[in-house]
């Protein structure tokens, strides 16, 4: 039986993702375009929030992916620590800037949404604060990656930082809850709850979330391929220099 660890082979990974990448990208574009158009033009305006409600189609998926990107980095780091597959470490590295961007999109769209609704761009609300802290974690993670020259050392150190950082990010998430009462509403989506946002907003939102997930997968594939190829190029150059 084929095992998932086969894809730890960089060659196999590139071959497979090469085949998948066009499909995933096309699907991501299709779902994003249809979801956003559906959301922006074919849903009614909220009776209280007016048209500003439509920013939900960017804000919620971005926030969701900001957290899930970190989760993916955590899993990839664990795989690197346990099984020492280089592709895994490179995938974690590739996901970090995407996650940071998603966090930033969530923060910025949140500010744009918060200004007309709450009357303020920024509030030290638990959710907002923990997202800012998450952004700082992303920055530190990426800075550590780029600060260390040796690839394996960098992979080891960043993966341990990712593990420790996850624990502390989680701690911060609940600590800020304790520290300040929130302005932000509770979770608007969950698997087990009957009540979500109203159905007219809910279905296009689901499409947008699917679009963001696909976009994230496509970008991670692409960036991981780039990392693998960059490393291969460096190895070839080094070999050439030795040969002379």
């Amino acid at each position: 039986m084929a095992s998932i660890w086969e894809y730890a082979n960089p060659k196999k990974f590139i071959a497979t993702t090469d085949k998948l990448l066009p499909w995933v990208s096309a699907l991501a574009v299709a779902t994003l375009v249809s979801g956003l158009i559906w959301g922006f033009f074919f849903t009614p305006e909220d009776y209280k929030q007016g048209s500003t409600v439509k920013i939900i189609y960017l804000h919620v998926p971005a926030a969701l992916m900001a957290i899930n990107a970190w989760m993916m980095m955590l899993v990839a780091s664990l795989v690197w620590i346990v099984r020492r597959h280089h592709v895994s470490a490179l995938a974690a590295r590739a996901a970090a800037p995407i996650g940071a961007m998603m966090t930033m999109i969530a923060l910025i769209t949140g500010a744009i949404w918060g200004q007309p609704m709450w009357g303020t761009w920024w509030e030290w609300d638990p959710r907002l604060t923990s997202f800012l802290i998450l952004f700082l974690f992303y920055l530190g993670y990426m800075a550590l990656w780029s600060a260390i020259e040796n690839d394996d050392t960098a992979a080891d150190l960043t993966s341990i930082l990712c593990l420790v950082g996850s624990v502390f990010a989680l701690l911060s998430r609940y600590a800020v809850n304790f520290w300040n009462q929130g302005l932000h509403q509770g979770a608007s989506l969950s698997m087990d709850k009957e009540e979500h946002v109203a159905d007219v907003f809910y279905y296009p939102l689901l499409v947008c979330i699917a679009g963001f997930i696909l976009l994230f997968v496509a970008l991670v594939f692409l960036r991981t391929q780039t990392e693998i190829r960059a490393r291969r190029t460096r190895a070839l150059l080094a070999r050439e220099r030795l040969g002379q």
Partner: protein
Amino acid sequence: MIALLIRDIRLAVRAGGGFGLGLAFFLIVVALVPFGVGPQSALLAKIAAGILWLGALLACLLSLDRIFALDWEDGSLDLLATAPVPMEAAVSVKAFAHWLTTGLPLVLAAPVFGLLLNLPGPGYGPLVVSLLLGTPALSVIGTFGAALTVGIKRGGLLLSLLVLPLYVPTLIFGAEVARRGAEEMAYHTPLLMLAGITCGAIALLPFASAAVLRVNLR
């Protein structure tokens, strides 16, 4: 291990002002705050607890790179790694030495600096207790950050970027205890949370720090 502790303390006290520097920095931060926000004593009384915690945290951060940097440069870190003491123990001892030379003086100085900031009377007890419980966590977390960045030249700024987000929970609960104390509210819950964070950090983080140091020494 005791020899290592004594050596680290001796180095901190004798070599180049690492010992007093943190305290002096703390004093300067406290002295600069009224210049920044104005000398109204009502305002200062309100923010004193938070400022004292923040100042202690920054003073602690300032001295972190000393934990491993010198030992890394002169090679004694390699000797420590090959010594019969497990790396985890060596890291814990170093964190403890850092706390004795940085955290403890800060705790002792905090009430005096509280006078400067017009900290309300009932706030002194909770302030000292929260710092006493919280600064060990700062030292242990900082040791992890220092171990991460030990191999990087001019890693000081990176160290701050890595360590400060990790300090967030400690700061939240510590400052909350001090603030609630100053406002004569019940501060039992955040104090327990702070103690929990410190115990957890002391128990678990040395393993991470030791793993990171081993990678760096490879």
